[in-house]
């Protein structure tokens, strides 16, 4: 039985599972549709949050990026986990106590202002939409590479599945499918990693194997450093001092962005109590950390395997997978000196091999000669990661429209039944819109994701933190802070991203900070502006001070 058979089988089984769960968990009220009824067990919510959070990028691309950046890849590992400490300690319990449905809900009520609510709702939709297009693209890519289904049909199959369970079940359906998707993706990620670790070091735990000796008695990382230096690259574990400031700021932007992303925050509205919200963030990070501590190990094993296989080897001796991946364009060999031997080196003049980041996870099973069912597992896992994140994001878009825009802005008298229908229709429209955008992905999807994190860090994070910890923060302060933070961050990214039409040059970066890290500065600006403006304008009404007081205590 070949890889193709296994891929069809495993993708078929997992997709049927998601559909089965969707039918079983239909939402009957807006409370079920928005926050799954509010009675989700904290461990279940932790698992759902982990799947919600880990996207196609975490599953397919991250290990490959680390593989090529070495130490430099750490910014993604710390940045995409550290935000959970902020969520658990500074946001989740208080927002749970506040006990509404959405992030714009909190901003609107806490800052007693429809304008604040509207700004928050536009940000929530923008952030979620840019992010979801990337997921749709991931689904199309997974289908087209492994199942020989055209990219477009892949995206359409993805839309159909998400449409089914998101429209039927809302947050309730999404929560339970996300639990299933977490199990699929974590199994799919760790199984090949265990194989790789055993092969390389004889230790079955990748996190330990990564720091162990290889079978010839040299530490794996030392070996990788030596190989890298031989080929003219920096040592894998070495820290490049010139980019350190940038690593610092990117890590910050990702952490604060994580803590401000609406699709993550709303997950904490689904648990029954404040103490559940706290522990649930702990479970979420524990489940996430299983993948995030395995990924750097996979990165190192894969890099050693790759160098050993291709470096200075004859092109005609390359195994089948090499040719297969060449056909997809993810691997490109250009025999510059026409000696029939692959030169894979740092010097771009001499280097003959171009490798796409994604190959490190996607082609790993073939490079390491793993059994064919592992390949099917990787595809099912990648799809689970993309679909679970897409569903969470689509829900944010739909609740922003049906709840924040329709119910709270346009028609407060809408009936419960009417609102539920509006929620269903808006998620259906959002799914289709995201799918259409995924069919014609703008070339800059990856670039826009930087914008999503930057905007979340520079808008929501300070507004929520100040809303909880600073009673004196008033609507004038919060609104001006959010606006300056967003505008500064967006303009900086637009100016310095050539893919978005910007003309700025890297030499002119502010303090050497690249667009990916500027959200940290945007956040600081937001905090400063909010604090100054709030102290110079009308004090917060007593009623709001009482509200802040009440969210600080669990009872």
């Amino acid at each position: 039985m070949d890889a193709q058979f296994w891929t069809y089988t495993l993708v078929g089984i997992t997709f049927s599972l998601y559909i089965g769960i969707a039918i079983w968990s239909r939402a009957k009220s807006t409370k079920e549709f928005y926050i799954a009824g509010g009675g989700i067990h904290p461990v279940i919510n932790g698992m759902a949050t982990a799947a919600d959070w880990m996207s196609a990028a975490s599953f397919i691309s991250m290990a490959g990026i680390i593989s090529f950046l070495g130490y430099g890849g750490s910014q993604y590992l710390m940045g995409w986990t550290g935000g959970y400490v902020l969520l658990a300690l500074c946001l989740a319990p208080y927002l749970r106590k506040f006990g509404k449905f959405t992030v714009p809900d909190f901003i609107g009520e806490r800052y007693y202002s429809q304008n604040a609510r509207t700004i928050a709702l536009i940000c929530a939709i923008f952030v979620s939409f840019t992010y979801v297009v990337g997921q749709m693209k991931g689904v199309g890519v997974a289908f087209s590479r492994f199942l020989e289904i055209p990219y477009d049909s892949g995206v359409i199959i993805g839309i159909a599945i998400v449409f089914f369970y998101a429209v039927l079940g809302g947050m309730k359906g999404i929560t339970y499918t996300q639990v299933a998707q977490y199990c699929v993706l974590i199994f799919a990620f760790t199984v090949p990693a265990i194989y790789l670790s055993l092969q390389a070091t004889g230790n079955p735990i990748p996190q330990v194997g990564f720091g162990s000796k290889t079978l010839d008695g040299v530490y794996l990382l030392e070996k990788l450093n030596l190989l890298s230096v031989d080929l003219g690259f920096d040592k894998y574990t070495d820290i490049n001092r010139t980019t350190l400031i940038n690593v610092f700021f990117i890590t910050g932007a990702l952490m604060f962005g994580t803590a401000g992303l609406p699709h993550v925050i709303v997950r904490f509205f689904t648990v029954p109590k404040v103490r559940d919200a706290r522990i649930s963030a702990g479970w979420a990070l524990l489940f996430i950390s299983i993948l995030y501590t395995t990924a750097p190990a996979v990165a190192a094993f894969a890099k050693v395997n790759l160098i050993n296989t291709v470096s200075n080897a004859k092109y005609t001796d390359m195994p089948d997978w090499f040719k297969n991946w060449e056909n997809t364009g993810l691997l490109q060999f250009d025999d510059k000196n026409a000696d029939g031997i692959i030169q894979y080196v740092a010097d771009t003049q001499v280097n003959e091999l171009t490798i796409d980041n994604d190959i490190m996870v996607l082609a790993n099973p073939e490079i390491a000669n793993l059994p064919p069912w592992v390949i099917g597992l990787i595809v099912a896992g990648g799809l689970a990661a993309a679909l679970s994140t897409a569903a969470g994001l689509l829900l944010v878009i739909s609740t922003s429209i049906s709840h924040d825009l329709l119910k709270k802005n346009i028609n407060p008298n809408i009936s419960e039944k009417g609102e539920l229908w509006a929620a269903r229709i808006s998620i259906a429209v959002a799914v289709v819109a995201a799918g259409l955008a995924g069919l014609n992905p703008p070339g800059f999807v990856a670039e826009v994701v930087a914008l999503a994190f930057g905007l979340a860090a520079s808008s929501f994070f300070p507004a929520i933190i100040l809303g909880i910890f600073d009673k004196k923060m008033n609507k004038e302060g919060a609104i001006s802070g959010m606006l300056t933070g967003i505008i500064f961050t967006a303009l900086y990214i637009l100016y310095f991203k050539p893919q978005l039409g910007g003309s700025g040059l890297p030499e002119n970066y502010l303090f050497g900070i690249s667009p990916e890290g500027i959200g940290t500065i945007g956040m600081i600006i937001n905090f400063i502006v909010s604090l100054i403006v709030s102290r110079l304008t009308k004090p917060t009404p007593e009623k709001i001070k009482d509200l802040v007081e009440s969210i600080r205590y669990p009872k």
Partner: protein
Amino acid sequence: MKEKYWKKNIMYLRVLLTIWFISSFGFGILFAESLNNFYLGGFPLGFWFAQQGSIYIFVILIFVYVYLMNKLDKKHNLEE
């Protein structure tokens, strides 16, 4: 009484977030180069903090916070 609860909560946050900052931005980034002169098995220490250690510490921090706050809730009779 309630004021005491909030003050204690803020104190916990200060301590835990300081550890959060030092283990990631400190050991994982700013001091990583010097820490790389020390080894943990095959890992240079700064590299280990950046790609493994900080993440383990994050998980532990949240569970410690949960433990401390549950105790504090109980002491102040604020359990739901």
